[in-house]
């Protein structure tokens, strides 16, 4: 187990180093992703010019949702972004090369192509979280929960992508856009789930459990919900969802057909 982690770390390390060679690429990635986050923030700013609260949430509070979502997205992009290539690899039969190595194909694939624009999302996300939480006077141990929520969010989002990518094994074809579904839904959780109709609200807590790492913890931080479960449910759900993703991947591999020669 330890040895395997060492392999994944070495793979990630070498891939990241290789990516960092391209300095312009890095700068542009940073700029683009920060701009995307900022434009979303501008929309929020305009929104709060019209109204002082959104289903009982003020601007600083919504900013925490924005920040957690951006950082979870950034974490997933940094560590697991290679998953986006999978539908393409399946169609081209390019998964063969991963399957000749003596390692678990899923984690090996995930870590072998880090995305540099993730740093933009991580950075803007961090600023938003800090700005939002400084309005409160939280004890330090509450701050310590933030990385846990972010990491859980990164894993939950990754797992959702893996599950959708695994479908491509069986249904090979023009379906690579299916990965946009978990992506778009993640962006939707930047707003308090109360603004959505109940089926969307609960869909984003149970089916695509993004709300577990941003909405529930924010509710707890701002004293809207009291149960401490809101604060610690995220890592549990992350582990569960990751296991589900691995199962989906294994199911998919059995249906992998590769291509001629």
């Amino acid at each position, binding site marked *: 187990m330890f040895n395997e982690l060492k392999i994944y770390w070495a793979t990630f390390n*070498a891939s990241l180093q290789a990516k960092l060679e391209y300095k312009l690429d890095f700068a542009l990635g940073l700029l683009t992703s920060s701009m995307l986050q900022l434009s979303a923030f501008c929309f929020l700013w305009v929104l709060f010019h019209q109204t002082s609260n959104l289903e009982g949430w003020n601007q600083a509070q919504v900013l925490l949702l924005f920040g957690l979502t951006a950082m979870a997205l950034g974490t997933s992009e940094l560590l697991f972004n290679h998953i986006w290539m999978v539908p393409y690899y399946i169609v081209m039969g390019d998964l063969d090369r991963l399957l000749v190595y003596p390692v678990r194909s899923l984690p090996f694939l995930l870590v072998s192509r880090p995305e540099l624009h993730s740093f933009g999302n991580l950075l803007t996300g961090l600023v938003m979280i800090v700005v939002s939480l400084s309005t409160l006077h939280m004890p330090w141990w509450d701050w310590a929960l933030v990385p846990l929520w972010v990491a859980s969010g990164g894993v939950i989002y990754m797992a959702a992508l893996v599950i959708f990518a695994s479908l491509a094994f069986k249904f090979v074809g023009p379906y690579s856009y299916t990965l946009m579904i978990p992506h778009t839904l993640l962006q939707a959780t930047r707003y308090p789930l109360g603004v959505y109709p109940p089926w969307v609200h609960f869909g984003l807590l149970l089916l695509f459990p993004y709300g577990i790492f941003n909405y529930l913890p924010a509710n707890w931080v701002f004293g809207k919900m009291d149960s401490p479960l809101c604060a610690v449910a995220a890592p549990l759900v992350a582990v569960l969802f990751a296991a589900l993703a691995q199962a989906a991947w294994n199911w998919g591999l059995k249906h992998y*057909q590769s291509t*001629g020669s």
Partner: protein
Amino acid sequence: MENALTVENLSKSYQRRLRQPGLLGAVKGLFASRFEEVQAVKGLSFSIGRGEKVGLIGENGAGKSTTLKMLTGIIVPTGGKLEVLGHIPWKERRQLALNIGVVFGQRPQLLWDIPVEETFKLLKTMYRIPEDVYQAVYGEALHRLGLEPLLNTPVRHLSLGQRMRCDLAASLLHAPAVVFLDEPTIGLDLSVKEQVRGFITDIQAKFGITLLITTHDLKDITETCDRLLLLDKGKLLFDGSIRAFEQKYASDRRIVAETHKPVEASAAQALSQAVGKSGGKVIEAEGHRVVVEYHEEGAAPALIHLILQQLQVVDINLEKTDIETIVTRIYRSDTAKA
């Protein structure tokens, strides 16, 4: 001899989507697809002993790659049994991968973005390669395949020939017990082909590797292998030594003589009668050229003697059908039947 791999009644069939023509057809296909079943491999059985060097040939679509992918655990067979180094490939893919090396000539294996040298280091960690084995193979590969100038280049910047040499080195770094090479010389120029074959032969001998090569270039096989498997439409058509293959399919040998003067009809007839008694047959006697065909091994000296006796010969050559011609002939007769 202990078996490195055993295949018993192995088969694989695919579901292939049937496409309807045109854009309208494509749109219809989105809603209701029809599938057809393609049998790529049908009841294949063979075994390979440790240290054997085996070439697998067959036309495009004969099932070579599919077989290789089942042996390496990449795809799951539809039926039959297979075992490689005591493992069932698709069930115990990772354990098996530690002890085999795989190269797909058509597909790059190394990670795209990472420089070659980093990849080698990564592989060393991944396979837990002992330092002495690593140094031995790595040193040999650098030297024999001329990798030194490529070490700092990311894989995607390499040319096909360069990439192939790196892939080959990478797949052998851990001195695997069994090596599968799928078209290892495809698209390479003649000198690189020679380089690659030489390296394969040496490393094979050094570590006693079991080798299975699929290829369309039969020189890959005649230069590195002892045994030949011929696949045809997913079935085994021949399994035996290269020599046995030649004897079975290329029994026709020829003596080609060039004469000083044009051969006269009467002389040709006399020769025809004489060689007929020694198991030969004149199949051509025109101008300065006489061709005698025979089948029995060892008939040549007597026939040459007769030709030299009866004609004034300036040059004489023995011709044997080369393996490439034989294989082409087999493929063609097969297509004619189909």
